[in-house]
Each structure stands twice: as C-alpha cells, then as structure tokens.
C-alpha cells in the first residue's frame, strides 16, 4: 500500500484523508490540514518544536509516519484553547513572557499540558526533565519554567 485512507480526530474534529505512506505527521498537519501551529525545527527529533499530542501523549510529529497514528486523537496547539478562552498554560506563558520568537512555544505548551495532567504540582526539576527535549534559543528557559509552575499552582 502506498496510500491509505486515514481518519484522524484532529483537535476534536474527525478528518478523513488519503495519506501517502511516506507522509510524516508534521507534513500532513501542516500541508494537508493547514495547521500553522505545527512548527518543524530540525526534522530529526532533536528540538521538540514539532511536538503534538497523540491520544494525549507528546509525540515528535517530524519523526512519525502519519499512517501509524490513524484512528487516533491528535491535539495541536490550535486545539488547546476552548473557543476564545485560552488554556491556563497559554495564559501563563503570555503573562510570564515565556516566549519570544514563539517557534518552540507550541511544543512547549503541549508537553507541559501532558506534564500537568499526570503531575499537577511539579517541581522545577520535574518541569525541566519533562521539557528537556524542547530547545528554546530565545528565553534561556527561566520564564518557561516559571510559567508552567504558575499554571500548575493556578490549577490547584
């Protein structure tokens, strides 16, 4: 098979697409579904920018064949807010200046979302461990850790 009809639930919406087997998840999300929040930084799994959630778990979309996640729920940063109401992490990133160029932000947000789901009150070290695969060249990370900490405290 070189093309497979795939169903993905992308940000809560069921999408049926004919996907080439060689298409990466990042390529399908960007090219075929037009999701601008999917950012590819390296293509080799070393920067974490392309991270999306597959059934709630952070996955590197640049290193995942799209056909292997058919039938699954995919959340990109576009799916984090509820209408115009931002996710607490999004609010917190804005408030704490946890982003500058913003290119790593979607991956950071999604990985943090998962972290807070399994660990609602993480330590600074927990956050660093969870986000170690996410490179940021702008912020020096301090404010990102601050923002995740604050979002966690706010949720309690």
């Amino acid at each position: 098979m070189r093309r497979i009809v795939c169903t993905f639930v992308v940000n809560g919406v069921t999408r049926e697409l004919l996907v080439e087997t060689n298409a990466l998840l990042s390529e399908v999300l960007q090219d075929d579904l037009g999701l601008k929040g999917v950012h590819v930084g390296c293509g080799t799994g070393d920067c974490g920018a392309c991270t999306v959630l597959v059934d709630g778990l952070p996955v590197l979309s640049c290193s995942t064949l799209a056909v292997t996640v058919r039938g699954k729920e995919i959340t990109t940063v576009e799916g984090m807010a509820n209408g115009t109401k931002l996710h607490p992490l999004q609010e917190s990133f804005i408030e704490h200046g946890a982003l500058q160029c913003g290119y790593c932000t979607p991956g950071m947000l999604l990985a943090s979302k998962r972290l807070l789901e399994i660990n609602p009150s993480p330590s600074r070290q927990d956050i660093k461990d969870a986000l170690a695969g996410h490179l940021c060249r702008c912020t020096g990370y301090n404010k990102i850790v601050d923002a995740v900490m604050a979002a966690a405290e706010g949720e309690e």
Partner: protein
Amino acid sequence: MFFRALRHFEFFEPKTVAEANELLLSYGHQASVMAGGLSLIQTMKTGEKKPEAVISLQKIDSLKFIDSDNDQDLKIGALATIRSIEKSREVQKHWAVLVQTARCIGSVEVRRMGTVVGNLCDGTPASDLATILIAMGAKMRVTSSGAEREVPLENFCVGPHQTVLEEGEMVREVRVPSLGDHSFASYVNLARTKPDITKVSVGVLVKNQNGACGDVRIAVGAVAPVIVRVRKAEELLRGEKLKASTIEEAARLAQEDVVVRPITDIRSNAGYRKEMVRVLVERALTDVVDKMNGAHAH
C-alpha cells in the same frame, strides 16, 4: 502533498510475528523493520536507507510487554518503549539501574517513541542501554520464519550499525537476567550536554560473593566500533575484595585494554575517551561498592 521528506515505500502492518517474518522473508534486504520508527525515519530522511517496504511492528500486540515472572529474567518485548521501562514498577524495583540508564537518553518524547529493542538493533556503540545490558548479560531472542535463536547482546553487534541479524530475521524480545539479592549494577556516562549522545560510558555488574567479587562484567560504550568488555580488568577483580586500590588498578587495566580503541569525532577525542574509561570504570565500581554497602546495611 507539497513537502514530503521521505521517498515512497510500501507500508505493511502485520498483526502477528509470523506475518512479519513472512513479509521480511519476501522483501529481504529491501525491507526495513520499524518499531518506534525514530532512527529508521532519520536514516530514511538522509537517504542512508531507501527501503522498498517498511514493515511496522506497531500492530503486533504480542510484542508489547515487559514481563518478569517473580523476580526471574526480565523480558522486554520488541515494542516496549524506553519510557515504559522507566515507568514499570517491576523494573524500578528490581532493575533500577535500567531506569537510571534510560533517563540518560535524549528527551521524554524520544524515550516515549523509541523502543528498547529498536535502540539495541540500531547498533550504535554509544547506546546507553546496550552498554548496561551487555554488562548485565542480556540476550536477544531472534526470530525468523520457522526458527528462533538466542544471541547474547554482547555478540549482537559486529560493527557500527551492523548486527548479526540475517535476511528475514528480527528481534522478538530482549531478556535481562535477574539481579537477585547479590548482584549489583551501575551505569555512568559522559555527554556534552545532558540530552546529547553519550561520548563515553561504562556499565558494570558485580556479583557479591561473601564480600568479594564473584562474577564481574564491565562494558564500555563509545570507545570502539562496538561496545566492548574489558576482560583484563574483570579478571583482576574476580575473587577480590573491592578495595580502593583494587578498583584503581582495575580501572587502569580497563583503560589500557586493547579493545579500547576510541576515535576522535565531533563529540570528543580519542585521548580523552581513553582516559575517561579509567575514570568512569573507577566511578562505576565505587558506586557498586556503595550499593553493596547500602544493601548490607539493610
């Protein structure tokens, strides 16, 4: 449709190991087996691998397991992710050194996507898991259509990214012997930054025999085309008490072992790597001693 980094290929998702074996046999070397997919996709992006067919194991539920029957051998199925090792209560309890080693690897995302067996099959001499698992005496269970064999992990790689796997073969699981109450393992490594690939690493396993060294295995990673055991140092230690001076001597022997033939590359240079073998062997053995003393204190 617009940007596609990979070339076209046939894609198969067998549901059983037997099906996978058949596909492997029919496509031969034109097929690539994919578990987590991380390293395969990278090599396909660079064009190092151009498989006609990709055989994904992800739908073979029977390969998704981490088993240990009452403190017996730990069996890690071909689809068990590195992350699942980290998270397994059993592994945390009885093979804690594997958890510690797993955490040296890349990022949470990489460990969640990557499988233990995939990591071992990649055949890099810098593999953290392979280094400790060789010290622990792990074995690979290899299957092909109609046959199964077991290969000690230390004989599994014959060169960088080259394994003993023959056409049509794949690894079903890796078995790690039980440590029991008397074996102690330690893993130490050096890398440029924390998530970086290891530049030198040492894994050791020591069997405590009445306060002295029983069996001992020392594996050194990233200093030769494959992960190597430093047997002179092992021999020296066998039957000895682990005193500081003995450890120091063993570490010196390890550094000078002929199998330690490091190269200079972007991560480090040969001289440094060679010297670090001594430092890390010493540190790993010292750590083992600490663990023995800790266990004794209990």
